[in-house]
């Protein structure tokens, strides 16, 4: 697995979220891809425990349509993000799990005329598709998942 290509993929994904361009971003996911933001530290179970977000492609598509809907008042505000990605580690490839890549990400979100900072450990499971990758799962562990959260209308 080419580390440089993986890094390039992470940066490209972050770029799409920074803008944000959810139409293109959703297509980075495999058909059975999952976006998961747990609501507790070291959360093991996305189904029998609450999460902030646990979206498959269907929910991502619903969320994307809501995001651009003209009558979604919480989405009338401009949203822009800046992802900084570091501490990238690539685990050896696993036949079933794909390639697991962990990184630390600091995301500054501009929303409702305020800047906020999110700090998270992000775990990508990637599968190779031709020259490129597809995301099997993106897991975003906030450093404070159980703290009171403010409205967040964009994926980190």
């Amino acid at each position, binding site marked *: 697995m080419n580390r440089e290509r993986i890094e390039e993929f992470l940066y490209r994904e972050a770029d799409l979220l920074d803008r944000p361009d959810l139409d293109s971003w959703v297509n980075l996911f495999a058909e059975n891809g999952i976006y998961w933001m747990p609501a507790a530290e070291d959360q093991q179970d996305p189904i029998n425990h*609450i999460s902030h977000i646990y979206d498959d492609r269907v929910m991502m598509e*619903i969320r994307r349509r809501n995001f651009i*809907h003209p009558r979604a*008042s*919480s989405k009338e505000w401009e949203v822009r993000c800046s992802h900084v990605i570091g501490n990238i580690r690539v685990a050896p490839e696993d036949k079933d799990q794909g390639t697991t890549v962990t990184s630390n990400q600091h995301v500054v979100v501009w929303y409702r005329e305020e800047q906020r900072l999110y700090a998270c450990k992000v775990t990508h499971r990637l599968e190779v598709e031709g020259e490129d990758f597809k995301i099997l799962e993106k897991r975003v562990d906030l450093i404070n998942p159980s703290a009171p959260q*403010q409205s967040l209308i964009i994926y980190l």
Partner: protein
Amino acid sequence: MTSVPTGDFSQVVTPTRVHRSLYTDPDLFELEMTRIWGQAWIFIGHESQVPNTGDYFTTNINHNIPVVMVRDKSGTVQVLHNRCGHKGAKVVEARSGNARGAFRCSYHGWSYRHDGSLLKVPNEAGYDGTGFDSANPCYSMQPLAQAESYRGFVFATLSPNAPDLKTWMGGARDCFDNLCDRAPEGEVEVAGGVLRYEHQCNWKFILENLNDTMHPMVVHESIVKAAESYLDSLPEDAVEQRKEAEIIPPFGASYEKFEASGITGFPFGHHYDGGKTSIHADYSVDPEYHAAMVAAYGEERTREIYSFNTHNVLFYPSLTIKCAVQNIRVIRPISVDRFIVETWSFRLKGAPDSMLQRTLLYSRLINSAMGMVGPDDLEVYRRAQEGLASPSNEWVEFHRQYGKDEQLEDRTVGGGTSDLDMRTQYQAWQAYMEGSIFNKVEKT
């Protein structure tokens, strides 16, 4: 407890209007914290959060008074002031945990039994002959004026004058029964963790919104359309698998549908919408769950339990529950323009895991700060908070169907799109603020 002084609040509350200062005035907020939150029964937690001796859960009973719910040696769940009898330090800092044997203050090491009584003062000889009496309850972690639980839901009040919990709940108590009866074993337990959501606006906005049935089709139009337009494009059998298809679209229900659900108000500010029907009424019934219910209750009683279908039930001012969904939201003010909502989900004992999974899906989609419904609600509360800074109109109105509310013996009933819920809340608000709330209470 200091007694609550009386006063006249008819300058800011009328039967159909409240003054905008109720949402913006920090002094009024402080008074609310003493007079409403300092008198009402406030939801603390559920007994299942503290199953074993010494298990505790900490929270504040209003914006700043720290309390701890703990199971003592006798198995009783106590609600204690989280304040050391010595120099006042908060004794228990963690959100939850187990205090083996005793609580120990981290300052000078005084320790307390789980019922709050003082166990040990280090180097106690220094108090000999000083007049210090370690048996004086003021040196303990004192219990709140009253604490009681109903079907596992623990409430406490700072007021010795509040009527007993059952009387205070009145007819809204049926909703706790319905929530618990939906479990084949007749009991629920907290499961699957908590969501905490910060709201940058006055705490009363969320209470007013619970049974505000004129808002969903406007505020939630986008998510309903987004969900419906996409789900419609999927093959039918793919949609059948999606619980989202049952959960999201009813938020766009018509005025007629909401009108039909009705609103019922009770003394002390409680109310619910729904009863015979609600936006949760058309959820499919899991066959395995249904079988467990019928085995426990029989077909007829099971139908009866399902048929009581409320949407949001408010126990004014701190708790709202969803019987048909099995989640609750707990409100805690912080300041005049800030509060926290916690969403807790419940397992129906004796029901298959799929029921808890649906509850959690609901909490995640609807009540999460990253959800599809909550952020649009908060957006409009914030706009109200910001708009009410305008002096152009001093009043917020709630006239809808005024004069049509029907007063029954223990409750008021009206149409599902009436402002009966607002009138119910602000009658209680005024009586709490004026100190007359518990004047003429009859036991039920």
